[in-house]
């Protein structure tokens, strides 16, 4: 801009800037750097005014202090690509990869920027940039294995053999063994009159490696008068595929899940990551059917709180001493679903249970899907911080309603040598119910 | 000694243009109440500001007053009192507004009213070579450009002649009370812990004066809390504050400024005519001469990370060079190129 300035002149006072400075906004004549049909939408990107209120809530920004590791910076990077001023290159991919998608930023954003959705789309764009090896492993894991229960069974079966060959950091994470035999019962009748029928997601990783949580889920629901159905044709809900840029796979899995749960009006999910994703099927598929499905999905603790539970008369130990339980909020429960009070309210009904919060409890544990495998340094630091925060509460049990978090927290506590039991909150309730039966 | 007695701002400008041309060294004089603060310096003329005493603007609803720098503090405070307000500097009645700012001495109520510099919003001043400048703004919040008015405040008349001031005011307290206690600095600190926001806690070697100001209910509550710490020796609603200034009886008075926790250290060598503000770190110390005990006092203050300039009598500011000495020299050079404004009076002999 140049020319005479000031009131009455051609340019307003304040319009002229030194060379190399411009007012923010798109540069005319440039073409967007996105490819394909899945990319962060312009309308979404333009909701961010770069106020920076998200920064202190972002775990990666807190750890690094660097703008590219913050939501504001990542959105700015996406906007630059969208405006054609930058390309989807390795630097861009690196910035996107470092994000946990914990969505703490969404919570505090005064403008309601839909960061989670934008990151999913950005990951579609960066997927081709990963190393061939990474892409192969992700393809095997997310596109091939997770959607197929038989392959997961095989993975669990060969785990003892494969374990010594796994990289140390992966070995540190994975629980000792998975369950191979037996299945969850297809239908479980409640005690007494049935209030209704609920269909539960058995999950992919959870069912294989943390099936105790699933069994406790069925027992607790039955104990509270629900007929519990585990639809046989379900596989993986597709959350991880969506989070890692494989929206086509995710869409397939979403459709499969919807079909598997056809005819059910109450769909209950005991994994926070899964439940959050299933509630967003409407966004993902864009169909009325998907939206209707998503409206029927409830997180397990949310459901139990809404419908009411029988307060247990049993405590956690046979001698009714107070057990301190720390509650860990999974990011996908706290943020994406707004679930905070419900599980706490339920646990407080258990006699002899002292419920405590974890310092900095709303900061991500670093599991974040495959983050713990793909970004070991950042994840390891967050894992350590979370484990130490849990240990500082003096709790003997930590409640975690998401298999990814459970895996991470268990590994973290092992790493710092602290003996704290990691249980799904429904398992804790289940214990209390089972304690009632004892004389 | 020549006398320059300007009637208005234009006269001041003319006088300084001339002073620079003639290399005539000038000392700015207001009410002659702060002359002793500063290193000794030789001058050829005095410039009296007392005729620049007009009111420019006062609107109680704004809590800002704009006056010419030669106005006497008493005249100002009387006018402000009609609006229910004060300029919280507690300076002598016949001191001038400009003098108070150029000397930047501290109010005994420093704990609650803050420093003089925090009340100065805008200054008009004339540089050593007769440039008429303005810095700051007449609003209580302002970040527009460089705060030259901060430099001028406390500069002892070595950077420019202050001719007009916009100052931030505060409401006069609805209630006041002084409570006396026996004891020294320890007692003072105990009182400060019990009453966290008094107007002042002034300790002497064996008496503490607690000054409370504010809403009547507040003063009442605070007095009660203080009485829980120790038994009051006396109470008054109309005593001036401070009521006794034992240090003023001495020919030399130094104003010690150290972090508050270091006061005991410094006061240990201060003799027995002193008053110290607990929670602030200021102390006025009365001495009999500018050597010996003053040097010891200054050494202690320096060791505590502070200073001890003399504010009454001989003794100067002390040998401490200011930080960024080169910057100080250059600032002096740009505001007073010919070095005619009280050369040598300020810190480091600048």
């Amino acid at each position, binding site marked *: 801009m140049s020319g005479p300035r000031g009131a009455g002149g051609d340019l307003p006072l304040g319009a002229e800037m030194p060379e190399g400075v411009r007012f*923010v906004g798109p540069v005319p004549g440039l073409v967007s750097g996105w490819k394909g049909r899945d990319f962060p939408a312009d309308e979404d990107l333009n909701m961010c005014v770069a106020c920076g209120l998200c920064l202190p809530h972002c775990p990666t920004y807190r750890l690094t*202090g660097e703008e590219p590791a913050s939501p504001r910076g990542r959105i700015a990077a996406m906007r630059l690509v969208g405006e054609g001023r930058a390309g989807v290159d390795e630097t861009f991919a690196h910035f996107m990869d470092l994000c946990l998608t914990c969505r703490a930023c969404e919570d505090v954003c005064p403008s309601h920027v839909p960061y989670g959705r934008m990151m999913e789309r950005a990951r579609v764009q960066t997927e081709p940039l990963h190393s061939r090896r990474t892409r192969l492993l992700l393809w095997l894991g997310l596109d091939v294995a997770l959607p197929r229960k038989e392959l997961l069974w095989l993975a669990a079966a060969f785990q003892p053999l494969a374990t010594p060959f796994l990289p140390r950091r992966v070995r540190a994470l994975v629980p000792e063994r998975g369950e191979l035999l037996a299945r969850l019962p297809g239908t479980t009748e409640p005690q007494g009159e049935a209030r209704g029928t609920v269909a539960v997601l058995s999950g992919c990783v959870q069912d294989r490696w943390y099936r105790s949580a699933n069994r406790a889920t069925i027992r607790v629901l039955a104990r509270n008068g629900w007929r519990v159905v585990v639809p046989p044709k379900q596989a993986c809900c597709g959350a991880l595929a969506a989070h890692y840029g494989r929206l086509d796979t995710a869409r397939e899995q979403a459709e499969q899940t919807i079909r598997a749960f056809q005819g059910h009006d109450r769909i209950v999910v005991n994994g926070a990551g899964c439940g959050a994703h299933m509630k967003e099927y409407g966004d993902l598929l864009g169909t009325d059917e998907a939206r209707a499905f998503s409206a029927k999905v409830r997180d397990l603790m949310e459901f139990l709180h809404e419908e009411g539970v029988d307060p247990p008369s049993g405590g956690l130990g046979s001698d009714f001493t107070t057990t301190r339980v720390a509650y860990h909020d999974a990011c996908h429960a706290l943020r994406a679903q707004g679930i905070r009070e419900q599980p706490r309210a339920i646990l407080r009904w258990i006699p002899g249970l002292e419920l405590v919060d974890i310092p900095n409890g709303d900061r991500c544990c670093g599991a974040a899907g495959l983050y713990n495998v793909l970004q070991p340094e950042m994840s390891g630091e967050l894992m350590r911080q979370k484990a130490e925060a849990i240990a500082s509460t003096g709790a003997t049990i930590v409640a975690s309603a998401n298999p990814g978090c459970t895996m991470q927290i268990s590994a973290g506590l092992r790493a710092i040598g602290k003996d704290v039991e990691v249980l799904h909150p429904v398992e804790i309730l289940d214990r209390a119910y089972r304690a009632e039966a004892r004389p | 000694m020549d006398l320059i007695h300007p009637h208005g701002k234009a006269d001041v400008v003319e006088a300084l243009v001339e002073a620079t041309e003639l290399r005539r060294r000038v000392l700015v004089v207001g009410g002659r109440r702060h002359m002793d603060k500063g290193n000794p310096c030789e001058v050829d003329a005095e410039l009296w500001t007392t005729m620049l005493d007009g009111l420019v603007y006062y609107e109680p609803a704004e*809590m800002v007053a704009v006056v010419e720098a030669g106005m006497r503090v008493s005249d100002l405070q009387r006018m402000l009192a009609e609006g229910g307000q004060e300029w919280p500097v507690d300076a002598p009645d016949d001191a001038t507004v400009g003098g108070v700012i150029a000397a930047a001495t501290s109010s005994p109520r420093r704990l609650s009213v803050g420093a003089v510099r925090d009340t100065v919003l805008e200054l008009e001043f004339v540089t050593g070579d007769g440039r008429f400048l*303005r810095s700051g703004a007449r609003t209580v919040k302002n*970040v*527009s450009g460089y705060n*030259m008015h901060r430099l001028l405040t406390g500069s002892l008349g070595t950077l420019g002649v202050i001719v007009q001031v916009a100052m931030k005011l505060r409401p006069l307290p609805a209630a006041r009370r002084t409570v006396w206690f026996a004891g020294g600095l320890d007692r003072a600190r105990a009182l400060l812990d019990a009453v966290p*926001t008094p107007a002042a806690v002034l300790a002497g070697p064996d008496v503490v004066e607690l000054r409370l100001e504010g809403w009547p209910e507040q003063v009442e509550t605070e007095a009660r809390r203080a009485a829980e710490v120790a038994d009051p020796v006396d109470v008054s609603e109309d005593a001036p504050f401070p009521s006794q200034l034992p240090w003023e009886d001495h020919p030399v008075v130094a104003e010690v400024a150290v972090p508050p926790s270091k006061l005991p250290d410094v006061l240990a060598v201060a003799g027995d005519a002193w008053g110290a503000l607990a929670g602030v770190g200021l102390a006025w110390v009365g001495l009999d001469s500018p050597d010996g005990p003053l040097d010891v006092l200054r050494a202690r203050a320096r060791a505590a990370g502070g200073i001890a300039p003399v504010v009454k009598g001989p003794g100067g500011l002390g040998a401490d060079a200011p930080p960024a000495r080169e910057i*100080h020299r250059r600032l002096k050079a740009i505001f007073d190129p010919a070095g005619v404004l009280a050369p040598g009076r300020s810190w480091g002999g600048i």
Partner: protein
Amino acid sequence: MADVEAARRALEEALGPAEVLSEPLALLLYARDSSMVEGGCALVAFPRKVEDIVACVRIAAEHGLSVVPRGSGTGLAGAATPVGEALVVVTTKMNRILEIRPEDRLAWVEPGVLNLDLADALTPHGFTYAPDPSSQATCSIGGNVTTNAGGPHCLAYGVTSNHVLAVDVVLPDGTVERLGAEGPEAAGYDLRGLMVGSEGTLGIVAAVCVRLTPLPQAVRTMLLDFETAEDCAATVSAIIASGVVPAAVEMMDQGIVIAAENFAHAGYPTDAAAILIVEVDGNNATVQAQAAVVEASARANRVRSVRVAADEAERALLWKGRKSAFGAVAQIAPHYHLHDCTVPRTKLAEVLSGIYAIAKRHDLTVTNVFHAGDGNLHPLLSFDRRAPGTLERVLKASEEIVRLCVDAGGALSGEHGIGLEKRAFMSLVYSEEDLAAQACVRAVFDPAGLLNPHKVLPEDARCAELAMLQGMDAAKAAADMPEGSWI
């Protein structure tokens, strides 16, 4: 012509390769702060200690780069927008609270400590750090110092300058000095007072000694709503005129209330023309008395309802809405231009209606959120940058708003600073001679123009003594021994 490559190598060696960014995309992310103007930089460096800052300054000078200091990058005037071949020195990794000394009512912090983190760390000691900008969750103390930041509670407690006892700064020549003192007075001219608010042009803050403010015994926060902005502004004047100085008096107009409520769900009345958030503090008795005066003033000016926060949670919610206003306004349109003029309190209503008229004339949406207690307005012009011709209208309206405020006796900026965006307006409030003197002050510190060029002063403000100062600088450099350097 700067030798960026050589500078990069030197920086990586001095600070460590992990502390230097040079990839083009990373550099683009440091091209702006939260203002409307973006520039570009050549390198970004993250010092972790004072010596690193000194190295950055030295290396930049050696290789022809200018230096742009940056904290959290939440500035609203473009002071942290790099221009030309610049090294952005980011202090976010210097984020330690070095010591808290309640007995001296002070604390030493590194410049990258976040404002709210500091206040939270002080709470267990019974203290707080009073200046609380809306961005306090994110902004850094170093940034606060360089902009003389304000915030709602500055009405009663004073701005940042009142709460900074001393700063350790790295000067443009690489020396380190402590300006101010831990005690109440320091030797020399008030260089500390000059540094606070100098927007990163006189030195880089390496450590800050802040004043601790005792936590008040009691706090009462009230929400008052009005049918007209005039009644609201009149209430503010009435409160002040009655001798009460609340801890905070904040005003929000309907547009911004709606946006803020949408995010914070604080129960703001979205049909009010304007609302006031008034907070009084002190001991229990004082709070009662002051609150009564506030309510009486409001009722005398046709307040519709008075809501008092019942507990800390409700108080936090009322403030959440206010403090998120800048971000929430994005719900109205993707871009906004924000002003920061301060006007005399008694002129508030008149200036406010003038601002609405200006916005209407230029067919723009304006919302207002501001520190009514000290007349510090924040008109927000919302717009979509992509629509052609919009930016020009915004800038025209901006000029009119600034002129309106200056004519009413106001200042250009109450707390955000001049930065890049407001330089052109400096000549509306200062004479040529004033600006030349300011340029000289700047040249005293930085004769070579290394630090944050193109900021604060208009391009044509020149120091007549520049040659002399540059000569003094060269002579000193030739004398070799840098005074006051730490290592």
